[in-house]
């Protein structure tokens, strides 16, 4: 069991900055995020895009902002549980929360800060009615162990870098057969990867099926074959072992919706006094919360985090007095 003062769900900019403000009050934090890296949307969706409204930075790349935040919170040695999604939150009799992830990792703390942004990033699943029947039985959205495709008949779908790179990797000398299905007849990935895919297609190492999409899935216990609709040839049936639809990630509120919090329009309602939710000890900050006049801005999330930890302190140390000090007065940041 991982024990800390504040469990922060979501390691985006707002969650990361919470560690700093909590650290100034000598509160320890542990962050949990479903993505394998910290930074949230800034790292996953737009690391190379400039942001122009971070005070003091005329322009900063989202990825740089994350790097800077990681450096800023380093003295406070936050813990991280990455690549795991929070599934369950339970409040014990002594008011401690037990937070459990999908992999069973348990965390305990008197305060939870939900800084979940848009929710958890999950693979985009093609709209085929029986797709759920074959998940982990022939369909993988994320490739964790390429070895499982050795000497197998594999079809990938998608037109971006991930589909191209995996098609090349699997076709090189792993899978026995690799087909790549794409909706259009051109690819938008990195030019080197696109060239390589065309070259391998010429050498019959990759079977390119363009202007096409997978429309049907067949099998009993596991996936045996797929139906592909191709513009000129019509329906094609392929016998396969695995189908890998690689259409990127999209955010969904996920299990947060089931934790007994007041939710409206995919956001958690909070009191602007301290961004507390209807559950005592649970706060929500950043893009995931909503209140009258809410703006989904990183800079607003930083403000929310700062006020939130003041109330968190009072929950964690009800008998201690909190005095307000400027960081300039405190001198160099002293970590743990």
């Amino acid at each position, binding site marked *: 069991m991982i024990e800390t003062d504040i469990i922060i769900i979501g390691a985006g900019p707002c969650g990361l900055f919470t560690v700093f403000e909590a650290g100034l009050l000598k509160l320890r934090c542990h962050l949990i995020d479903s993505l394998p890296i910290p930074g949230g949307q800034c790292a996953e969706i737009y690391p190379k895009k400039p942001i122009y409204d971070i005070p003091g930075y005329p322009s900063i790349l989202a990825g740089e902002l994350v790097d800077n935040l990681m450096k800023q919170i380093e003295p406070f040695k936050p813990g991280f549980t990455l690549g795991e999604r929070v599934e369950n939150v339970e409040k014990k009799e002594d008011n401690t929360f037990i937070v459990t992830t999908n992999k069973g990792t348990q965390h305990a703390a008197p305060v939870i800060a939900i800084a979940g942004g848009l929710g958890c990033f999950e693979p985009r699943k093609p709209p085929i009615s029986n797709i759920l029947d074959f998940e982990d039985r022939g369909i993988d959205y994320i490739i964790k162990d390429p070895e499982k495709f050795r000497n197998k008949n594999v079809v990938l779908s998608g037109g971006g870098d991930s589909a191209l790179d995996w098609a090349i990797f699997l076709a090189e000398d792993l899978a026995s057969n690799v087909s790549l299905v794409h909706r259009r007849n051109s690819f938008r990935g990195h030019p080197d990867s696109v060239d390589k895919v065309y070259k391998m297609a010429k050498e019959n190492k990759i079977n390119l099926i363009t202007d096409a999409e997978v429309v049907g899935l067949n099998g009993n216990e596991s996936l045996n074959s797929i139906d592909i609709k191709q513009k000129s040839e019509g329906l094609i049936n392929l016998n396969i072992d695995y189908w890998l639809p690689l259409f*990127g990630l999209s955010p969904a509120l996920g299990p947060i919706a089931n934790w007994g919090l007041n939710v409206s329009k995919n956001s958690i309602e909070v009191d602007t006094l301290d961004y507390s939710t209807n559950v005592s000890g649970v706060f929500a900050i950043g893009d995931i919360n909503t209140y009258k006049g809410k703006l989904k801005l990183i800079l607003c999330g930083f403000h929310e985090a700062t006020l939130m930890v003041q109330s968190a302190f009072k929950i964690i140390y009800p008998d201690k007095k909190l005095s307000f000090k400027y960081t300039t007065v405190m001198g160099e940041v002293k970590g743990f």
Partner: protein
Amino acid sequence: MDENIILIKVIDREDQTHEIEAPTDMNMNLMEICKAYDLPVKGTCGGMAMCASCHCYVESEHEISDASDDEEDMLDQAFFVENNSRLGCQVFMNEKLNGLIVRLAKEND
């Protein structure tokens, strides 16, 4: 009518047509206009062409500036994509779009 206002039609997923006024002098895009009228467009990524939750079909013959690489990339990852597919967040309101007709694409969740 105000010279900086155009009329557009948005057909929602229940086949209801909404005729709405859109300002052309506020640098607003179709996704933002739809949200302002409480039409069911999520606009999750805030208009960066990175989520496809504002995917729509242009059903009138209006000339709209070509899709950027970012928009094409996103459409490659979206579903129910047709030749007239666009991301609402990349369609900016201007006087040439008066009378525009768009249909919201199906959601996949």
